[in-house]
């Protein structure tokens, strides 16, 4: 399968969108684009599995074209299990995002255009094997987010949009410095090619100098403490589909980059700095969880809990055992599905009640049983109920972290595991007072339950969550060879 189709398809559809008139036609095109993406990524999954059974190389479906010859920049794409999983996640979230914004009225054409264009950035990032193209797509995805939040958002949207854009740009600026450092220090192989760079042993001094740039840079994207402040504002001001994309995919760009670029290319430095990163991740896990307890707005609750949950990804990467890295990848997928669904449900509630304050809601289960049940289910997933994806992913991270010998690491693992209790508190409290309990506002009696598009979106993501929760082995099998390649480099350090 030629991976460039993953780029060309969204690009073609976003260009078509520019020439289509009328809300119905526009959203039909957008839906076609999203369905086509999902179909394509499922085809990719099966072809990948079939192909991998046959051959044994680290990356499949590679294609490599010279882009800027004099600067040794190539357009080099290829996938391993981790990227295939990420591509699937993206396709799921984008389709759900298009479905929940079905009734978008304000500037609908621009909205769907940006959404489809954004998905192209994500696919491009995940298939890139050249760090220049990777960086290119990382930045491609920033401005559509800025516009989506600023134009269609709610609350202090301009402020949030600006904060998000600037912090993410600062992140990519740091990544950029890290990448140029690697580029010039790969003596003899001056290149941006990930595969070539990974074969070049950088001296520990070089690694120690450029690892922080790359890791913090990507870390900002994935809400690394203390650079997480764009997350609550950005997520809560964004329109539903953009929140879903931001939390579901965009934050995963950072985690993927931390793993694929920072840790993979500079394993010595990753080892050297792992203590600091673990401390930061533990702080983020606890701080995020406690900060969530204080929130009264449903979107803020989910945004802060995202800070806490994505810190598991960082923790998993920094612990540097095979299981923990597997867990980090699983947590990325799980959190992507879960948080996208959470934002979708919150969006549905907000659209009907026009409030996101927990205190003003209540008794919603009586009037909108479907939405409420999904809300409860996704809440349970978030607090790590067995049978759902959250449990599998977090459990894997904990197991992997415990494998790393040493009191410090065990202590960090215990802290991380303890946060689940806090999670249970805020999730159950939100469920209890917003969904159950007495009806606080009699106007809510007239509200309707989910429409077909919302039901489809919710079921789609819920299927993903359950599939991963009940049968985790298939995902594990998918990503395992990918993490093994990474572990071969990291494992040599010990």
């Amino acid at each position, binding site marked *: 399968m030629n991976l460039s189709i993953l780029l060309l398809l969204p690009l073609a559809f976003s260009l078509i969108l520019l020439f289509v008139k009328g809300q119905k036609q526009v959203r039909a095109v957008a839906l076609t684009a999203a369905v086509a993406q999902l179909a394509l990524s499922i085809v990719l999954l099966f072809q990948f599995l079939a192909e991998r059974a046959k051959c044994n190389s680290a990356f499949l479906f590679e294609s490599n074209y010279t882009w*800027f010859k*004099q600067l040794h920049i190539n357009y080099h794409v290829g996938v391993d299990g981790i990227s295939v999983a990420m591509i699937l996640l993206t396709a799921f979230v984008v389709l759900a995002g298009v479905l929940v914004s079905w009734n978008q009225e304000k500037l609908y054409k621009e909205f769907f255009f940006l959404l489809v264009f954004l998905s192209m950035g994500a696919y491009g990032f995940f298939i890139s094997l050249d760090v220049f193209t990777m960086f290119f797509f990382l930045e491609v995805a920033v401005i559509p987010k800025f*516009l989506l939040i600023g134009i269609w958002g709610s609350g202090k949207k301009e402020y949030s949009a*600006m904060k998000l854009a*600037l912090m993410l*740009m600062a992140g990519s600026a740091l990544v950029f410095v890290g990448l140029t450092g690697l580029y010039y220090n790969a003596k003899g192989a001056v290149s941006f090619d990930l595969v070539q760079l990974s074969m070049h042993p950088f001296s520990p001094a070089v690694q120690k100098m450029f690892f922080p740039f790359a890791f913090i840079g990507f870390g900002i994207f994935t809400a690394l403490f203390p650079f997480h402040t764009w997350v609550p504002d950005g997520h809560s001001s964004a329109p539903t589909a953009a929140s879903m994309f931001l939390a579901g995919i965009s934050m995963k760009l950072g985690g993927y980059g931390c793993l694929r670029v920072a840790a993979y290319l500079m394993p010595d430095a990753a080892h050297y700095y792992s203590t600091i990163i673990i401390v930061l991740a533990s702080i983020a896990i606890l701080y995020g969880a406690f900060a969530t307890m204080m929130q009264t707005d449903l979107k803020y609750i989910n945004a802060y809990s995202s800070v806490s949950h994505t810190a598991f990804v960082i923790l998993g990467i920094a612990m540097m055992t095979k299981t923990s890295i597997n867990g980090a990848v699983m947590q990325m997928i799980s959190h992507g599905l879960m948080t996208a669904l959470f934002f979708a449900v919150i969006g549905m509630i907000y659209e009907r009640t026009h409030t996101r304050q927990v205190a003003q809601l209540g008794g919603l289960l009586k009037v909108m049983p479907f939405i409420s049940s999904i809300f409860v289910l996704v809440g349970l997933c978030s607090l790590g109920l067995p049978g759902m994806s959250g449990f599998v992913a977090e459990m894997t991270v904990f197991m992997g972290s415990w494998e790393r010998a040493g009191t410090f690491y065990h202590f960090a693992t215990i802290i991380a595991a303890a946060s689940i209790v806090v999670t249970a508190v805020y999730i159950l409290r939100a469920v209890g007072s917003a969904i159950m309990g007495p009806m606080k506002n009699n106007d809510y009696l007239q509200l309707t339950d989910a429409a077909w598009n919302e039901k489809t979106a919710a079921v789609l993501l819920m299927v993903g969550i359950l599939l991963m929760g009940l049968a985790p082995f298939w995902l594990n099998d998918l990503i395992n060879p990918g993490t093994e390649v990474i572990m071969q480099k990291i494992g040599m350090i010990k």
Partner: protein
Amino acid sequence: MTNFFLLMQQELLLTVIIFILLFLKLGAGDIDSKKLMTLVNVLLAVNLAAGFFFKQSGSLFGDMFYTDNLLRLEKNILNLGVLIISLQSANWLSKHQHAVEFYLLMLSTLLGMYFMISSHNILMFYVGLELASIPLAAMANFDLDKKRSSEAAMKYIMSSAFASGLLLFGISIMYGVTGTLSYEGLKEMASDSPLFIFSFILLIAGFGFKISAVPFHLWTADVYEGSPIAVTSYMSVISKGSMIFVMASVLFHVFDKIFFTWYNIMAVLSVLSMIIGNLFALRQQNLKRFLAFSSISQVGFILIGISSGNMQGATSVIYFVLIYIFSNLAAFGVLSLVSTEKGKETIDDFKGFYKTNPALTWILAIALFSLAGIPPTAGFFGKFFLILAGASKNNYVLITIAALNMVISMYYYLRIIKAMFMDANDTPIEKVEISLSPKIAFVTCVAGIVVTGLASGVYDYIFSLVR
């Protein structure tokens, strides 16, 4: 003799155009400005096409004048920029009674720049520079009924004379030290004796004025604000671009022996220009002033590319100037239309612009994204390659400062995007009609912004020409 015509083909054609205009002015009295503009645009397009057609290199007039394919390309880039400006200012010029004079002055400065670029002797360079700057002052005064315009002209001529003075002082000391004025001679005689370095620094100060690098930037904002927009865009793009071309070739080929001296100077100038340009741009309300300060910070990025001192750096600088012409002229074009038709040029006026003028808003947005260096626009590639070239000297402090300055500049570019797309406004600027010639200019600019970056051919082509 044929050699003479072939080598000077671009200059001669331009002179012919200037003379045609002169005769038209003298002979025909009142000319229909529409016809005049069509004529000039066609002639400029012919000149541009001819520039790509001939491939002669060599020197003339006892090695005073030198040209090769790279210099031809640089002149063509400037010619393209002038053509775009001419197309964009159609609305403004058709209302102006002295359109012919405007073209006369503009093309004279362009001729001066051609000689500047092609000079192979520092005196020749000075003559070209004067030809390029004195008519420019007259152009700055072209809004005849506006006081600010004459103020701008006055400020420009003063600071320009001061810069020329510094330059001449530097040149004369340099002549005293080395006893030669030709580039070949200077290249041989360049040394790091204190007096030579002193004269060299005076030379750099003269350059610095022209490209408005900090700390020689003080004239920029006032002059840019006061001048008519066509002239502002001409100054910020063409005049600056020509000087950058000259700097790149002179520093790289004449003063390559004292690389470490000018490497440090360039690094300091670039950090200052980026930071100060950015900090002032943050607070501007008038879009012309804003673009003036943002162009100062852009110069900072260009200086990083120059500081690398290698072929990659030279290529990136020329490549960036090309991209800068497309993106800055697209921004100025929108501004020029709105300002001529509605007389509005502050950021607050542009609030809610998207509701009434979606096409213009997208053009301005793409231009600003390109200036800010956001992919997939060409500006991203331009800035990335400049900084990448600078990083070849392992000066990661400089690189980090540059990367963080890109973030600061993001803020003020996004501020305009925010005003246009997000801010509510009860009285947004009404719909502006885009006539044919600005439309051609916009299509060229946007196509340039999209294609120059993604298609690597442009970069490869420039690289193949760089010596």
